[in-house]
């Protein structure tokens, strides 16, 4: 019996170098090819080891991206927040301390050599100065884009916030009579993530394909037996704070919000994990921006509008989505909030982590 075979396409010979670069990018180091005078200089090194302490007393090995100036001040996960102002021209000197890496400034949109994707540019050898201009205030993040399933899971990410020119305390939102600005009193970051501890025992290059310039898609060069398609988290965290297994409630001030009645809270939410995350707040919230783009604000936002999520109306984010919410509680009280984590294939709920918004 003959069953028709739908074969893999042959690799076009003229694409051989591109197919090779797809899996084995070159390394590069040095200055930016088209430098513009920067207004801000930052530096980040990767990778740095970090032991994440769990409430149960054990710990998980993580990798973080570190500001070299902070090396003595104590390490943090997620990696240190980068705070910029709209219009900043940024030079970010990224050092690869171990192995080769990249940094992708997620939501920031520069040229390929500044976008931090190896297969479209290079992996950083010793160091490289990435350059971009932060032209739109909003919520972004940065992460390593090499062997990404593993490197992002290991903790190689941090938030990147672009404030309007007025600086921290003001957010861009639809408000024509106020120049599309609103003041906020309290800023909070909810960045849920999950950990599959089996993955945290792996090496940088785990399960990568062998580099074969002569035949970059040679069947024998593919790795087998990898587990990077099989994500089985058993630690659930928010903004670096792991929830206790028995009582998964986080009151740590890095997550739990505290404000006075009448104040405005800006909540920046990022799914930094690999599950479908469902958020439910016991307070009304207005969604004012997604992925660093303010809803309703001209010119590019005029096809959309901010909208209100009534209390207890869930919203769902998959990996890398960011929402900005404004909360204006008027009645004192402790308002619960929760994030549920659902498996990306089975849809099964894996965990529910609770926190709170305390209104004084």
């Amino acid at each position, binding site marked *: 019996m003959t069953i028709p075979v739908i074969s893999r*396409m042959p690799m076009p010979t003229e694409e051989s170098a591109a197919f090779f670069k797809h899996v084995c990018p070159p390394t590069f180091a040095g200055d930016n090819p088209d430098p513009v005078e920067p207004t801000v200089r930052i530096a980040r090194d990767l990778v740095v080891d970090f032991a994440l302490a769990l409430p149960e007393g054990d710990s998980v090995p993580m990798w973080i991206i570190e500001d070299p100036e902070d090396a003595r001040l104590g390490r943090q996960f997620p990696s240190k927040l980068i705070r910029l102002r709209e219009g900043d021209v940024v030079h970010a000197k990224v050092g690869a301390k171990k192995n080769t890496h990249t940094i992708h400034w997620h939501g*920031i949109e520069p040229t390929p050599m500044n976008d931090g994707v190896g297969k479209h540019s290079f992996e950083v050898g010793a160091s490289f100065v990435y350059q971009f201009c932060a032209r739109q205030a909003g919520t972004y993040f940065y992460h390593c884009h090499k062997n990404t399933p593993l490197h992002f899971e290991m903790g190689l990410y941090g938030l990147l916030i672009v404030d309007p020119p007025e600086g921290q305390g003001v957010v861009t939102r639809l408000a024509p009579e106020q120049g599309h600005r609103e003041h906020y009193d309290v800023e909070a970051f909810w960045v849920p993530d999950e950990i599959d501890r089996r993955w945290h025992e792996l090496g940088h290059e785990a399960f990568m394909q062998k580099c074969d310039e002569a035949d970059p898609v040679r069947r024998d060069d593919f790795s087998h037996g990898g587990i*990077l398609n099989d994500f089985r988290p058993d630690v659930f965290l928010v903004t670096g704070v792991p929830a206790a297994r028995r009582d998964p409630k986080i009151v740590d001030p890095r997550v739990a919000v505290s404000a006075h009645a009448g104040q405005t809270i800006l909540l920046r939410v990022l799914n930094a994990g690999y599950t479908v995350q469902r958020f439910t707040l016991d307070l009304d919230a207005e969604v004012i921006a997604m992925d660093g783009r303010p809803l309703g604000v001209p010119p590019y936002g005029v096809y959309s509008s901010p909208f209100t999520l009534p209390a207890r109306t869930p919203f769902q984010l998959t990996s890398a989505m960011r929402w900005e919410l404004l909360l204006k509680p008027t009645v004192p009280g402790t308002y619960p909030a929760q994030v549920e984590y659902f498996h990306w294939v089975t849809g099964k709920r894996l965990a529910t982590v609770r926190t709170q918004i305390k209104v004084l």
Partner: protein
Amino acid sequence: MHGHDLQWCISSKEWSRRDALTLGGVGLATLSLRSVACHAALGGPLDPELSIGEALVEMIDGELVYAWAFGDPRRGPSVPGPVLEAFAGQELQVTVTNTLSTPHAFAVLGTPIATKPIAPGATETLTFRAPPAGTYLYVDPLSAPVNRLMGLHGAMVVLPEERAGTPYSAPTPAVARLFGDLGTTEHFPGEPWQSDRSRVWLFGSVDLRLPDSISRGATFDMNEFLPGYFTINGLSGAFASHDPETIPKGRLGEPHLVRILNAGMAAHSPHFHANHVYVLARNNVVQENVVLVDSFTVGPTERVDVLLPFMRPPDVAGDPQTPLRDLVKHELGMRLGTPQRPLAYPMHCHMEMSQTAAGGNYPQGLVTHWEITGDLDGVDFPESELESQSTGGDRHDHSSH
């Protein structure tokens, strides 16, 4: 009217016969066949025929997987099945022949269009009017989701019945305004959308254990389903990233429509680099609130249409009025393994497990590219002399670590 015929959009370049593969002593005629989106009038048959049959599909690492596939009875099977194109309201007659030994069917999800179960060896003819313009997933709905996951799925693209400035029969005010603004406003210099600037990206995934069980007549617990291969239009990784029918390519100011369909079981989170995209329609609901995002959800069987505006990547440092070819001329002239021209960026799913093949081999999963070939003023990036090779040291060999 010929232009209103349902078209079979199978690119002729895929029809070459390949050398016979020998597998386990059995000589197999290798028919390379893949369906692609097309947007030209190819003049295919008026009343298309689909067959349902067996195939062995080669994964990116060479693994051959038993599959069930839709296909043209004369041309053979493909996964996904051929892209069906029609105009809204057009009367169609689809003939489906089941060559397998179990009952199968044809249905367009989200519509009443469906055959009854078709017995082994039998043929059913289905006459229907094409639904409102949009992006539809056709499947074998039986034993859901098993038959769909075995390969019996494809895209149906329905175009507006009249020449319209948008892809929809009844665009919302926001979608109409967006398309009306393209090429006519200060913030969207360049060109209006042209319907041939469209791509279909059908996401698929394969768990080897499912076809293995099916082919042995065993049952498979779908709670255990865990895909190990991830595809766009049947292709993975480097192949999907260099497939001209898949990648959007053009100068700044040449907006493209991308129709995304998820035939698999995973929740995907497609992420575009270098441009945010407008979400136009979700499961054929044209959006009232057209958000501009860089990452969004496409759940199992969902369809999401987005507009990739082909804007100048906004965060390139330097004077936004200076053409990119002048502002970043050194980068455009560099060779880092390959030339840095044109400007190429990825679109990949951020549920990063989908970037794998066989549990690793990053990034040989659900990833493709889009390419900016020139500036807004119609000038392509120049074919200048390439600067020297990278200076950063050794090539990296993963096997040495």
